[in-house]
């Protein structure tokens, strides 16, 4: 499966925060699997990616602040933010 790992890396996108790319890819892998195999097939159980998403989010939020990117109206997931249950 190492071959597939390299295929995945070759065709993967980067994050705007260079330091966040690995976290982003981990999250994307989790999300894409859940999206294709559960969500689109009508499985309404919760998405299993919240932990990886939180880690990725913390990194991206910092990168956006550092690069002064004018994001409009997004409340980043913080320790107090409640994600609605699916």
């Amino acid at each position, binding site marked *: *499966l*190492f*071959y*597939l790992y*390299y*295929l*995945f890396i*070759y*065709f*993967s*996108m*980067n*994050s*705007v*925060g260079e330091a*966040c790319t690995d976290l*982003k890819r981990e*999250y*994307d892998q989790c*999300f*894409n699997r859940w*999206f*294709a195999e559960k*969500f*689109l*097939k*009508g499985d*309404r159980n919760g*998405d299993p990616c919240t932990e990886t*998403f939180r880690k*990725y*989010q913390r990194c*991206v939020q910092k990168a*956006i602040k550092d690069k002064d*990117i*004018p*994001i*409009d109206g*997004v*409340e*980043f*997931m913080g320790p107090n933010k409640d*994600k*609605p249950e*699916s």
Partner: protein
Amino acid sequence: MNHPWETVTKAAMQKYPNPMNPSVFGVDVLDRSVDTNGRLHSTRLLSTEWGLPAIAKSIIGVTRTCTYVQEHSVVDPKEKTFELKSTNISFTNLVSVDEKLTYKPHPQDPEKTVLTQEALISVKGVSLSSYLEGLMAKTISANAGKGREAMEWVIRRLNTEIEELAATARGTMRVPMAAAVADK
């Protein structure tokens, strides 16, 4: 597009990178949640880098620049709609480009998907505005064809990954790691 809606939606969600949009260098998810109607909302940041024509230097002062686009999308798995709305958040003092894309199953053929794409462009405070708007409209319209090509590329790529995963699982493909790296 000659693919069912689920295939197109999966591909559209992973649209970047693709060779038709080389200027997009970053895609980040800023927020994501499922609403009470079971629809998935995502807010994403697209980071692009452009090499601009030389005239850009006299207008915005640079010829290489990062521009950012914020996109909000909604996937409704019951109604089978995937709608994306994007707007530039860079150079908003100069130009406003709002795009809306909707993917739905073809009304007569469920094996096909219809993409509807709209763009609203306005250029601010520049006397050449109608010329520039016309130019941007032409570019966006030409890029709509490129967008379809990009989707076909992503769909082929995802199908290749699935086939290779299946072949590996069956044990019919054993590729030494060194050879795979050399291949790249």
